[in-house]
């Protein structure tokens, strides 16, 4: 992948333009390699290598997006304008969405089903796991797998050793924090948003996966609109640092920016139905601190375990699925002498549902989020998990604290959802925009419904799947 100037990019007629340089665009591009295609990546921000990020302490991204928040609670949205996008600051947890997450309506009468099933994209989940050198346990077996994980799971904490042995809903957390493979092994510093040793998969440290003679990237170039003629995309207009606004021509356009900005581009372009920008949502999380009668921690990475005890079941007719995270680093410690490590640090993460009133709109041509809060369904899931989490801990314990609602889980979902037709979605099952067959939206913005599981592995798999269709 080579840099290109705006002037040179403008002179070229591209086969494919991909907006954004994070998971969604790069995993889509992975399937375009070796096909003699001229592919241009448009990146709104600069290229900042890992060493420079460490030296300058690129701040953890929060805010930066205009919103009108009527929820009564703080709400942050994590965006990252730099080459590699949020792959620079993600924590690297890669649980898969589960089969039930694709069939919420047919199983529980809630929201709507995805037009693709778990089985449709499972092989691409495997491929994404191998591209990212994921460490995970084959013994866990909550959802069907067609291949083992490429690398074994990190060492569990002391509490997880008991949890895994006595309560089968607890399993090792699969992750892209290395435990073998091309990157150095996780250092367990718990500073994963900017990994000190570059052990976590990022686009930057895995650029060789996305190398092709025909791949170029243009920096400091924000896609503003998609140009169309006769119902087909003909290219994009980008605001560049070098030349100001320029028009770039392409036979195919893939929008792999953040769900907020993908929505804004479609809205600005006048493409798509009234569904564009609607249903923006995110998981909702809450920490739980538990005192236990033995030393915990000593695990092999930051988040070592997860609990599926409240992930799926008939309760989902009324209350959201919840994934429980078990944290090793940074740990929660006790201040009583000698009991410093006798603490279990858990986080409840509930799925949310798309709600039409939570949406992206344009104000003065800039994206603005209208946010009225998480759904009652999500809060019901959290309440259920808080009430019953003790039942999943098969040793003496005392819950000593429950945190407030976290301002973000940094997993923005929705705005350009998949549907079976333009009445139910913005894109079809191949992620193509209804009515503009050579325009795709990529990333978690296309999820029909969210899930309690972290979205990155699944959105990367979806990009592989969609890239193969091109």
């Amino acid at each position, binding site marked *: 992948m080579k840099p290109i100037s705006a002037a040179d990019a403008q002179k070229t007629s591209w086969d494919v333009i991909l907006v954004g340089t994070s998971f969604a665009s790069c995993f889509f591009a992975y399937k375009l390699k070796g096909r003699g295609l001229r592919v241009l990546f448009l990146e709104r921000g600069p290229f900042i290598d890992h060493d420079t990020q*460490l030296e300058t*302490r690129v701040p953890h991204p929060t805010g930066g997006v205009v919103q009108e928040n009527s929820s009564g609670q703080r709400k942050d949205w994590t965006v990252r304008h730099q080459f590699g996008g949020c792959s620079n600051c993600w924590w690297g947890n890669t649980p898969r969405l589960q089969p039930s997450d694709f069939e919420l309506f047919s199983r529980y009468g809630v929201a709507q089903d995805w037009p693709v099933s778990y089985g449709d994209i499972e092989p691409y989940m495997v491929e994404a796991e191998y591209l990212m050198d994921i460490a995970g346990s084959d013994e866990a077996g909550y959802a069907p797998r067609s291949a083992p994980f490429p690398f074994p799971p990190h*060492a569990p904490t*002391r509490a997880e050793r008991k949890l895994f042995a006595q309560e089968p809903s607890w399993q090792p957390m699969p992750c892209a924090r290395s435990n073998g493979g091309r990157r150095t092994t996780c*250092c*367990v*510093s*718990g*500073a994963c948003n*900017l*990994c*000190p*040793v570059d052990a976590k998969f990022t686009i930057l440290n895995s650029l060789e996966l996305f190398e092709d003679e025909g791949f170029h990237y243009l920096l400091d170039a924000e896609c503003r609109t998609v140009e169309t003629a006769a119902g087909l995309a003909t290219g994009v207009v980008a605001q560049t640092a070098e030349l100001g606004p320029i028009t770039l021509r392409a036979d195919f356009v893939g929008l792999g920016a953040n769900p907020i900005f993908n929505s804004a581009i479609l809205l600005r372009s006048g493409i798509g139905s009234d569904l564009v920008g609607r249903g923006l949502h995110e998981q909702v999380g809450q920490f739980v601190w538990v005192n236990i009668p033995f*030393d915990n*921690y*000593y*695990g*092999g990475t930051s988040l070592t375990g997860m609990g599926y005890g409240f992930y799926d079941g008939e309760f989902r007719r009324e209350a959201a699925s919840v994934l429980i995270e078990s944290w*090793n*680093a*940074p*740990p929660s*410690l006790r*201040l009583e*002498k*000698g009991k*410093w*490590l006798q603490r279990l640090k858990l986080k409840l993460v509930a799925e949310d549902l798309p709600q039409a009133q939570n949406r992206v709109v344009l104000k003065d041509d800039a994206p603005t989020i209208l946010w009225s809060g998480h759904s009652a369904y999500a809060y019901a899931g959290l309440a259920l998990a808080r009430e019953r989490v003790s039942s999943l801990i098969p040793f003496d314990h005392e819950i000593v604290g429950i945190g407030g609602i976290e301002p973000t889980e940094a997993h923005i979902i929705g705005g350009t959802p998949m549907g079976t037709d333009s009445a139910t979605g913005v894109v079809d099952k191949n992620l193509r925009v209804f009515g503009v067959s050579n325009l795709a939206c990529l990333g978690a913005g296309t999820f029909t419904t969210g899930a309690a599981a972290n979205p990155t592995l699944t959105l990367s798999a979806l990009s592989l799947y969609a890239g193969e269709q091109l």
Partner: protein
Amino acid sequence: MSLRRRAFLVGAAGLAGAVLVPLTLGGTTSFLRRTLKDHFGPEVLELAGIDDFVDEFAALAGEDDPAKKIAAEMYFGWHGDRVKMIGPAKAMQERFLFTILHRSNIIAVQQGRATEFEYGSVDPWSPVCGLYLSAFADETL
């Protein structure tokens, strides 16, 4: 010298003395050492490297607010062993204990699994490799 000028100089000298005496005494450092002694026992102060850790933390504490830093030095310096645990003092004590527990191998030393005291940067925003707790993963199976 006018009376007014004399009064000003005497007042200024007195104020400087009030600040410098506790600074010289190292009020914050003494408070942190007492905290360590109370929590881990007096032998902790004999560990090589403990003084450096305490000095680094004391230097960093309140770095972004010189007025608060001087106020803290004066408060801890004047009160000495009889310091009243007002809110800010309690907060500093907790932050200090959490810092040493997270960013050093003091737990391993206390448990007899390490004899040499080691620590990473006391700056909590500095990405320090190898959290000490997890560095002993294999030894605690």
